[in-house]
C-alpha cells in the first residue's frame, strides 16, 4: 500500500510576521521557513503506518519553488521513501494545489493521501477537501486517530463539541489535526540518508494543470491594534475595574 503526503514550506510557526508597508503582502524575505506543523504530523503518521507494516511506500510531495526541496528532504529524514517536487514560481492557491495533487494521485494510485488540516500561512483549510472532491474520494478531515486496514480506514475526527468516528473505503483522503501524533525529531544520520533518496521534479504543465490564481489579493494590512492595557495590583481592583470601568460583569 502506497501513501502520498503533501507537505508545504511555510514561515516558521514561531515567527511573528510583519506586513509590508506598501500593503502588498507579508514580508517573508530572510524569515525562517519550515515544514507546516500539520504536515509534519501527516508525514509522521504515514511513517508510523509504514513501521507497522501496513504501508509499503511513503511519497512526500511539495508544490512551489526550488527551495521546497528542503521541506521534502525533511520529510524524507522523518522517513518518507521518496519525494516529488512540483516546481513553479507561480503563486499557488489551494484549488491549484489540489489539481496538481489530483494529477499525481492519478499517476501514483496511492491508497491514502494524508495532508495537514491547514497551512499556518494562508490558514485556508481547503486543499485536502478539494483533492478528495476532484479525485472523487471519501474524506476524513481533522483526524486525531487513524486505524488502517487492508481495504478501509477508520478515523476519529475532532468536531465542534467532541469527536466523531467514520469508516472510509480506500482509497481515501485524510487531513491531520494536532493531536494525531507527536512528530519525531529528525536525527543527523537520517538527514544524511535523506540526501540520497530519490527526488523527482515535475512542472505543472507536464501534469496538465493550469495553476493561475482565482483569488486576487488586493491588499494586506496590519490587524487593528489593541489599546494599551493596565496592570492592576490586586483582585479587588480587577473586579472593581470590570464592574465599573469595563462594565462587563
Amino acid at each position, binding site marked *: 500500500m502506497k501513501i502520498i503526503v503533501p507537505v508545504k514550506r511555510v514561515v516558521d510557526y514561531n515567527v511573528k510576521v510583519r506586513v509590508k508597508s506598501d500593503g502588498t503582502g507579508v514580508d517573508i524575505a530572510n524569515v525562517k521557513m519550515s515544514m507546516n506543523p500539520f504536515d509534519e504530523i501527516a508525514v509522521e503518521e504515514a511513517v508510523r503506518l509504514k513501521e507497522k507494516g501496513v504501508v509499503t511506500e511513503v511519497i512526500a510531495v511539495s508544490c512551489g519553488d526550488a527551495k521546497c526541496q528542503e521541506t521534502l528532504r525533511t520529510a524524507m529524514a522523518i522517513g518518507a521513501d521518496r519525494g516529488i517536487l512540483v516546481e513553479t514560481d507561480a503563486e499557488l492557491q489551494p484549488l491549484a494545489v489540489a489539481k496538481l495533487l489530483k494529477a499525481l494521485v492519478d499517476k501514483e494510485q496511492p491508497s491514502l493521501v494524508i495532508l495537514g488540516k491547514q497551512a499556518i500561512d494562508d490558514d485556508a483549510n*481547503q486543499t485536502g477537501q478539494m483533492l478528495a472532491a476532484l479525485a472523487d474520494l471519501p474524506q476524513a478531515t481533522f483526524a486525531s486517530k487513524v486505524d488502517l486496514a487492508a481495504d478501509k480506514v477508520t478515523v476519529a475526527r475532532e468536531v465542534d463539541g467532541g469527536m466523531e468516528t467514520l469508516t472510509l473505503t480506500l482509497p481515501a483522503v485524510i487531513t491531520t489535526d494536532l493531536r494525531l501524533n507527536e512528530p519525531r525529531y529528525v536525527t543527523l544520520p537520517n538527514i544524511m540518508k535523506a540526501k540520497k533518496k530519490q527526488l523527482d521534479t515535475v512542472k505543472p504543465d507536464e501534469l496538465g494543470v493550469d495553476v493561475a490564481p482565482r*483569488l486576487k489579493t488586493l491588499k494586506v494590512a496590519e*490587524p487593528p491594534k489593541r489599546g494599551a492595557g493596565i496592570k492592576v495590583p490586586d483582585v479587588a481592583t480587577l473586579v472593581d475595574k470590570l464592574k465599573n470601568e469595563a462594565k462587563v460583569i
Partner: protein
Amino acid sequence: MTVLVIAEHDNALIKGATLNTVAAARQIGMFGDGQVHLLVAGVQSTAAAAAAAQIEGVAKVLHADGVSLAHALAENVAAQVLAIAPAYSHILLAATASGKNIAPRVAAKLDVAQVSDITRVVAADTYERPIYAGNAIATVQSTDATQVITVRTTGFNPAPATGGSATVETCEAVPAATAIRFVDAQIAKSDRPELTAAKIIVSGGRALGSAEKFTEVMTPLADKLNAGLGASRAAVDAGYAPNDWQVGQTGKIVAPQLYIAAGISGAIQHLAGMKDSKVIVAINKDEEAPIFSVADYGLVADLFTAVPELVGLV
C-alpha cells in the same frame, strides 16, 4: 444574484453560527438585489426547517430530508448543495468544523476557489480575511462566477432568529455516498454556554498543572460568571481539558465580551483565537508573558490564589 446559506443544525434547532452566516449573506445581498435562501439538509429535520423559516431576512428555505443527510457527511451534503448550486451566485457556510469540512468540496466540484473565514464583506466579490494566525488581514477579490465562502462567525452580528416568514420548499435528498460510513460520535454534554457564542469565557493554560486542578480552580469561576470554559493548546495537549475547548488558530475562534486567561502565556497561536474579545483579562505569574501585551487588565499573581479570590468577589 441569490445567496445560499447552508444551515448547520441538529435536525431540531438551527445552530447559532448559521445566524451569523445569514448576517454575512444579507450584507452580500445588499450589493445587488440579492435574496437569501437557506438549505436545511438533514434527516427528520422538519423542526429545523421550520426554525430556519423564522430567521429574519431569509426569503426561502430549501428542505432536503433523507437518511443520506444524517450526520452532515461532507460527501452527501456537498452533493446536495451541488444539486441546487446553479441557481446561486454565492454559497455560504459558517467556518465551523462542519462548514470547513464541506465548503472546499463544493468549491472544487464547481471548479471555483473558496474563500475561507471571511471577517468582512467589502463588495459582492471582495472580502477581508485574516492570514498568518490573524497577524495580517488580506483583502481578496474572487474572479469566479460562483463564490463559495466560509464565514468567521465572530466577524458578524447574528441575524435575529425570529421575525422572518420564509416559504419552505422541499427538495429531493441525494443518494448516500457508498465509500464512507458514520460509526459514532462522542459529543460532550455540557450545560455551559457554547464556547463560540458565550458572552464571557474563562480559559486556563498549562500552569493549572492537572485536569483535577483545572476543574477545581476554573469551574467555580465559570459557574459564577455563567461563562464558557476554554483552554490553551498546552492545557489540552497535557490532557487537562478536552480538545474542543481549545481556543486559538487551530481551535475555536472566539470574541466574547470578556475573556479571562489564567495561566496562559499568550503564544501567537492562542492570541489568534481570542484577540478580538472586547475585554481581555490576564492572570499570570510571569510579568513578561506575552498575554499582557493584549490584556486590558493584567494581574501578575499566582492563579491558584487569584482565581479563588476572584470567585469570592464577583
